[in-house]
């Protein structure tokens, strides 16, 4: 069940071109949503203005090589290890979501484009990676949603209370959860149940990618840029912090480490 390509089995009632076109449309939706988000909130304009101000205030202007070094450090720490988080639980949850989403996304694209039909035998590793990625998203997202959300832990909201900031994580977790349910039902052979669950899966996946202007999806793009800018300001001395603060985080207060 978990070692066969679920998208290839869709060809019983859908053309392989459906998923191939759908993925292109979703990529376009994310691109359009991110551009709209940047223009509507003027975040790009703010970011560039801030960058100019930072360069003007720099006590030690950085050369190209130094900027490249800063970019590598940002990639190694903030992007690949989610090192920005001061809370280890949040960092682990984010790592599960980040790498789970990457596995899920890459394996989906490979299975849909390289092995679109049941005739093209899919190597077992891709469906396994798809399921492992989905499971990582469910574990990381569920952990975050019920136990780590700051409005739940610090503001004492109910774990079941939804706020607009939850749109991204809820649509992501539900879409992969229904993806797995659809895969299981499809393996049992019921065509109507398969069609219904596949419809729910596609609906939730569409919500995830189309809701970019209203959700936190775009943080995948602007957070690394913001982390890089923060490091540049730190190294170039344009952040106005006391000298002792360069490159340091403050330690969490002992009484404030509930998460």
């Amino acid at each position, binding site marked *: 069940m978990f070692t066969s390509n679920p998208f290839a089995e869709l060809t019983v009632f859908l053309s392989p071109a459906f998923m191939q076109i759908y993925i292109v449309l979703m990529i376009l939706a994310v691109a359009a949503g991110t551009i709209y988000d940047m223009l509507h909130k003027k975040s790009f304009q703010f970011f560039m203005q801030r960058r100019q101000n930072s360069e003007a205030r720099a006590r030690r202007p950085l050369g190209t090589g130094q900027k490249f070094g800063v970019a590598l450090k940002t990639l190694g720490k903030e992007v690949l290890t989610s090192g920005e988080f001061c809370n280890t639980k949040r960092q682990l949850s984010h790592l599960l979501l980040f790498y789970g989403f990457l596995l899920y996304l890459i394996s989906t694209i490979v299975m849909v484009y390289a092995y679109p039909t049941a005739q093209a035998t899919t190597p077992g590793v891709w469906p396994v990676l798809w399921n492992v990625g989905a499971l990582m998203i469910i574990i990381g997202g569920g952990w975050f949603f019920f136990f780590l959300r*700051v409005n739940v832990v610090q503001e004492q909201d109910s774990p079941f209370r939804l706020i607009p900031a939850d749109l991204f994580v809820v649509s992501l977790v539900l879409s992969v959860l229904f993806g797995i349910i659809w895969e299981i039902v499809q393996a049992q052979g019921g065509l109507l149940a398969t069609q219904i669950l596949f419809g729910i899966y596609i609906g939730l996946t569409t919500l995830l990618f189309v809701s970019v202007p209203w959700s936190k999806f775009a943080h995948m793009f602007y957070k690394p840029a913001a982390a890089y800018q923060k490091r540049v300001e730190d190294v170039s001395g344009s952040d106005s912090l006391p000298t*002792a603060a360069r490159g340091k985080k403050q330690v969490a207060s002992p009484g404030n480490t509930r998460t």
Partner: protein
Amino acid sequence: MPTFVDMTKCDGCGQCVDICPSDIMHIDKTTRRAYNIEPNFCWECFSCVKSCPQHAIDVRGYADFAPLGHKVRVHRDEEGGKVHWLIGYRDGREKEFTFPIRTTPWGSIPAAQEHQAPGPNDIKSPQLAHEPTALKIDSLPTLEEAQNRG
């Protein structure tokens, strides 16, 4: 001089929400980042500024009385037991000051919830919660003892 949060630096950890004595640092429902819900109720205690792990919070002077162009930045060094201040003047000068903030290691003072909860009869005691152990003494003189001595 209310606080404000740099949304690009905040990671939504909630430290400021926990520590704010005015309970005016809250979490934005759309971005899940901290923000000051009532800037006019902020009494500039700098608690959130010092506790923010990302240095994402700053204090902005009101333009009608704070010197334009000034800045006050702070970094709390818990391991070193110091607090570092950077004062920026209107004419561009900057001065840094460092002060010791404690003589015991960070985290060595038990939080209130780590002490034993008071029993029902403790309300009749003249001692305050966690006394005398929190004062690091064996006992405190009581009213009865003082009267007997007198």
